[in-house]
C-alpha cells in the first residue's frame, strides 16, 4: 500500500529526515517510536503534505501513485488520513458542519454526491458510538473547549467518518489519562480492517499495550535504526534508547 524509499526532508535549513525506508501493507499496523526530536512527527506531517517541510529526496508511493506529487487535499481524497498531534480549534464552525463538509468533499472527489444534513446525521449516529461520544459534541465548535481527550477522540471520529485507507496517528496518546487512552485505542481497533493500514507514531510504549502493532520501528536522527516486532517496544521501555543509539553508531 505504502512504499517509502530513501525519503529525506528538511524544515528550513535543517535536515530532519535523512533517508527513511518503510513499506506498509494493507491490514498492518506499524508503530514508530523514538526519542524527542528524532523526526517521528515530521515523517507523519511529510506523508500528509505539510507545507513547512520540503522533501529533498526519495520517493513515496501510495497504491502505486507518487504521493509526493499530490496536494494535501488530494492525498486526503486518496485515503491518507492524519490524526493531528495538536488538533486545530475553529471557533464558530460546528463540528457537524465541519465533518459534513469534509465528508462531502471526499465524496465529491471520489465521484459521489453530497449528502444533506439529515442523511449525514444518520451516518454520524453509528460513528459516534465508536468513540463513545454523544451527539451534543456535534453542535460545539470544532475542538473549541474540548479537553485533551475529547480532541483526540474527535480525531478518531473524523477518521471513522472519512474511512481512510492509511491512517497516520501522530502522538494520539500523548497527555491522555488511562481511561481516555483506552477509548481512543479501542476506537482505532474497531476501525482496523484487512484492507486498511495504520502508522502509529508514539512517544510512549504504553499505547502499544492497547493498539498492538505488527511492526515497531525506532526512528533516531532521521533514520529508522531498528525494526522489529512488539517485543522491541517492550525492550525499549526497559532499557531506553541509549543502547540502540550506541549500537547504531558502532
Amino acid at each position, binding site marked *: 500500500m505504502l512504499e517509502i524509499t530513501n525519503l529525506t526532508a528538511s524544515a528550513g535549513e535543517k535536515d530532519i529526515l535523512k533517508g527513511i525506508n518503510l513499506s506498509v501493507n494493507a491490514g498492518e499496523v506499524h508503530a514508530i517510536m523514538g526519542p524527542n526530536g528524532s523526526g517521528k512527527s515530521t515523517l507523519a506531517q511529510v506523508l500528509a*503534505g505539510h507545507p513547512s517541510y520540503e522533501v529533498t529526496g526519495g520517493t513515496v508511493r501510495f497504491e502505486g501513485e507518487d504521493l509526493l506529487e499530490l496536494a494535501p487535499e488530494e492525498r486526503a481524497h486518496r485515503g491518507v488520513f492524519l490524526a493531528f498531534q495538536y488538533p*486545530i480549534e475553529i*471557533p464558530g*464552525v460546528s463540528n457537524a458542519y465541519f465533518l459534513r463538509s469534509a465528508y462531502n*468533499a471526499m465524496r465529491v472527489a471520489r465521484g459521489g454526491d453530497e449528502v444533506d444534513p439529515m442523511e449525514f446525521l444518520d451516518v454520524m449516529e453509528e460513528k459516534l458510538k465508536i468513540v463513545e461520544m454523544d451527539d451534543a459534541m456535534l453542535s460545539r465548535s470544532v475542538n473549541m473547549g474540548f479537553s485533551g481527550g475529547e480532541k483526540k477522540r474527535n480525531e478518531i471520529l473524523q477518521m471513522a467518518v472519512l474511512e481512510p485507507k492509511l491512517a497516520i496517528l501522530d502522538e494520539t496518546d500523548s497527555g491522555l489519562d488511562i481511561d481516555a487512552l483506552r477509548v481512543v485505542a479501542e476506537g482505532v481497533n474497531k476501525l482496523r480492517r484487512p484492507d486498511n493500514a495504520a502508522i502509529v507514531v508514539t512517544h510512549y510504549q504504553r499505547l502499544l499495550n492497547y493498539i498492538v502493532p505488527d511492526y515497531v520501528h525506532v526512528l533516531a536522527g532521521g533514520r529508522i535504526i531498528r525494526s522489529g516486532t512488539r517485543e522491541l517496544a517492550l525492550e525499549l521501555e526497559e532499557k531506553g534508547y541509549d543502547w540502540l543509539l550506541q549500537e547504531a553508531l558502532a
Partner: protein
Amino acid sequence: MSSEIEALVGREYQYGFVTDIDADTIPPGLSEDVVRLISSKKAEPTWLLDWRLKAYRRWLTMTEPTWPNVHYPAIDYQAVRYYSAPKTAKPLGSLDDVDPTLLETYKKLGIPLNEQKMLAGVAVDAVFDSVSVGTTYKAELAKHGIIFCSFSEAVHEHPELIRKYLGSVVPYSDNFFAALNSAVFSDGSFCYIPKGVKCPMELSTYFRINAADTGQFERTLIVAEEGASVSYLEGCTAPKRSTNQLHAAVVELIALDDATIKYSTVQNWYAGDENGVGGIFNFVTKRGKAMRNAKISWTQVETGSAITWKYPSVILQGDNSVGEFYSVAVVNNMQQADTGTKMIHIGRNTKSNIVSKGISAGRGQNSYRGQVKVMPKADGARNYTQCDSMLIGNACGAHTFPYIEINNNTATLEHEASTTKIGEDQIFYLKQRGMSAENAVSMIVAGFCKEVFKELPMEFALEAQQLLGITLEGSVG
C-alpha cells in the same frame, strides 16, 4: 502559502465607479461664510445657523486627536469642499422626479429607488454627496406615525423635534470631528418612532460619496419614544479616487423608556489601493442614550475606508438599560482601523455586552479601543467583553486597548481575548480533511465572524458575507 491566503481575502472593490452628473459645488475652504452659505442653501432657520456657528467657533479652538493608533498625512481642511449637490436633485420632491442618472447610480449599487422596484420591507433614504435624493415608503410609514425623511426636510417639517434632540447626545463640543460636522453638516436622515410603535419595516440610509475632493458630513438622528422599537441600517460606498476624501459623520440615538433601537452598519467606503493611495478618511461619532429599560444595539461590519476612527457608544442612563456592540472590522492592504465602543453605566442594573472581531490582512493595522465605565450609582452593573483578533499573514497587526473604570464595587466584569493566526497549520488541517484552501479560509473567517453576523438583519448579513467572500454555516445546504 501566506500569499495564497492573502489572494483569497484581497477582492476587487465593486463600487468604485463615478457618476457623471452636474453638481452645485462650492469652492474648497472653510470659514464662517462657508457655514453661512451651507445654511442658506438649505434655507435653514436662524437657530440652526447659530448652532452651526457656535460649533464652528468651538472647532477653531480644538485640535485633531492624536491618540488613535492610526497614521495619515495631515488633513488640509481648507482644501476640502464642504458642499456638493447634484443640480437636478429635488430633495423635497417625489421619487418620480429624481434624475434618472441618480436612479441608475443607486440601481448599480443594488438600491433601486423607483416605486416598482423598491426593496421589499426596507425603507431607504438615499444620500448623494451633500443631499438626500429620495426616501422610499414615506407614505406607508406615515400611516404608523413614523417620520422617516432627510435631515433637511425634518428641519423644516419637524423643527420642534430637531431642536429638542439635535446635539442632545453628541454635543457640538464633543470632539474635533463632531464639532466640524456640527458646523458644516449638509444632510442625513431623521427617524422618529412614536410611543409604543414597532416600526413595521427596516429603515435604511444609503450614503454615496461621488464628487471629488468633497467631504461628506452627514447627521443621523433617531428618536424612539417610550416603548417604540426600530431597526435601522446604514450602508456606504464611494468611487475609487487617488486622493483621500474626508467623511465625518455624527449619529445620535435616543431610546426613551422601554424603547429599542438596533443600528446596523455595513461600511464599505473606498479603502484605497494596495499601496495605500486614495481611500476615505472616516471619522465618525456615534452615540446613543438609553433611558429606563431601553436597549441600544450597535452592529457594524467595517470593511472599507483607508482610516477608520469610530466608537459607537451607549450612555446607559436609565435603570436596567442595555447597551450592545457587535463589530467585525476588516483591514487589508494599507488600511488602518481604530474602532471600538464606550459603555457608560450610570443607571442601576445596567448591562453591556461587547463582541469585537478584528481581522487583519496585508499590511493592515487593526485596533480595538473600548471603554467600560461604571459610575458610583450604577449598582449591579454588568459588562461582558469579548475581543478576538485574527491575523492573516505576517505583515499585519492587531492591537487591543481596553479602558476599564469601575467606581462601584458591585459591578461584574468579564473580559475574554484571543489572537489567532490563520496560518499554515489551520489551512493544512482542513486540507488534510479534503477541503480546498479557498473553502478552508472561508470556513475559518465565517466561523470567526459568526457571533456578529447573526446580529445583522438578513439583507445585511448576505451583503456582509458577499463582501468578505464567505459563506455562513446554515445559509447553504
